[in-house]
């Protein structure tokens, strides 16, 4: 450092200009404002994911859990009663019911009357996409677990092969229909319409499987066969695409703004 900048006279002269200091009230006011902008302390990732999921369990309507369990229980019972040796897994009532139940559940994850916890949700530092993803994972995971569980009693009544075929038969359509229902409920903002559309698509697929294709109306004949083995990779791909689009739309926030007039 050169001598010029160390000049004590210059330093002393400059020091004569004193600056004001903040009062305690001003300091408290600043701290209060800053406290609002303080970064949120986030728990470890796994714990964070668990907390989000746990919070969403309370938000997802109880009826979804109960109805899913009831319908899949009845489907399993009927499948066990109706099972005859040589029957394919895809022909069992459970394989027909499981995608329908999953789609219904996914339809009611988001909609006008199915979101009582929205005020709570909007005060949490979690984006809407993450919240919806957590709900979808919960409901889809629940139905998946129930249906896998249902394959156990079917295997016990002797339907080993059918039980395995059952799992491979419903997993792809169930995933795709759930994703479609989820997409519909967020984009159309109407759980009922979304549930109807996805149920109708599944109904047509079931009809197509058991009825003579030639007897179907021309419009329905061109629909892809959701039970076909070669359709499965496509069904998973479409499901992934639909979920991604839905999450992108929900993250934009305008669906919530539209719903809640924000």
């Amino acid at each position: 450092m050169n001598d010029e900048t160390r000049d004590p006279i210059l330093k002393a002269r400059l020091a004569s200009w004193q600056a004001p200091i903040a009062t305690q009230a001003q300091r408290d006011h600043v701290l209060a404002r800053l406290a609002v902008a303080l970064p949120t302390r986030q728990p470890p990732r796994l714990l964070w994911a668990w907390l989000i999921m746990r919070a969403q369990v309370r938000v997802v309507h109880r009826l979804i859990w109960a109805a899913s369990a009831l319908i899949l229980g009845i489907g399993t019972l009927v499948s066990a009663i109706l099972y005859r040796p040589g029957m394919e897994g895809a022909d069992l009532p459970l394989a027909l019911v499981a995608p329908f139940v999953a789609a219904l559940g996914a339809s009611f994850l988001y909609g006008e009357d199915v979101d009582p916890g929205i005020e709570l949700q909007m005060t949490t530092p979690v984006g809407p996409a993450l919240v919806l993803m957590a709900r979808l994972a919960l409901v889809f995971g629940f139905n998946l677990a129930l249906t896998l569980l249902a394959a156990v009693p079917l295997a016990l009544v002797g339907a080993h092969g059918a039980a395995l075929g059952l799992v491979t038969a419903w997993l792809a359509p169930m995933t795709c229909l759930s994703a479609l229902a989820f997409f519909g409920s967020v984009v159309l903002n109407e759980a009922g319409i979304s549930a109807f559309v996805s149920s109708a698509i599944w109904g047509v697929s079931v009809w197509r499987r058991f009825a003579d294709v030639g007897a179907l109306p021309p419009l329905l004949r061109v629909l892809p066969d959701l039970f076909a083995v070669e359709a499965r990779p496509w069904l998973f791909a479409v499901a992934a695409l639909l979920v991604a689009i839905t999450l992108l739309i929900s993250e934009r926030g305008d669906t919530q703004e539209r719903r809640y007039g924000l």
Partner: protein
Amino acid sequence: METISDEQLAARLQRGDRMALNALVDRHYDPLIGYLYRLLGGDRDHALDLAQETFLRALRGIEGYDRSRPFKPWLYAIATHLARDQAARAENRRVQAWHEGIDPPDDSPSQEGALMDAESTHQVQAALAQLPLEQREVVILFYYQDLSQHQIAQALAVPLGTVKSRLHHAVHRLRGLLEIDALRVPLEEG
């Protein structure tokens, strides 16, 4: 007792530690007000507002703060940007008022009046107001805020040589404005 460094406090702040925020405000709020007050030519209200805004911006950007770099220059860099914006707005208002034929409010102390004033404070204020903003920044950071020339270079994002050059020119000019050389000669002669 060992004092926690600014950088350690900033690291805690990144994790949302409110005590770290209180400690940093405690350490830097008044010095920031002083820096901005002197940089803006003695405007207390603007200095208070900008000191608060500096902390708000620092808090919003704390995730991006690199803990391996000193905190103080980082904080003063934010304050300097805000002060420059403020100075540019004030200059625009002055130019607009001139175009509209309105006498703009003179918010810088009159050099003539201040130099004639017996009060050293006013002389210093007037002398600093005569410096270009980039020299004023360097002088205030160096003499009032106790930043080293290296830290000033970091805060202003300029090379160290530029800081030295600005400081040299500023000191030379200040000595003339404050008549320090004239003062020194009789003292030395006496």
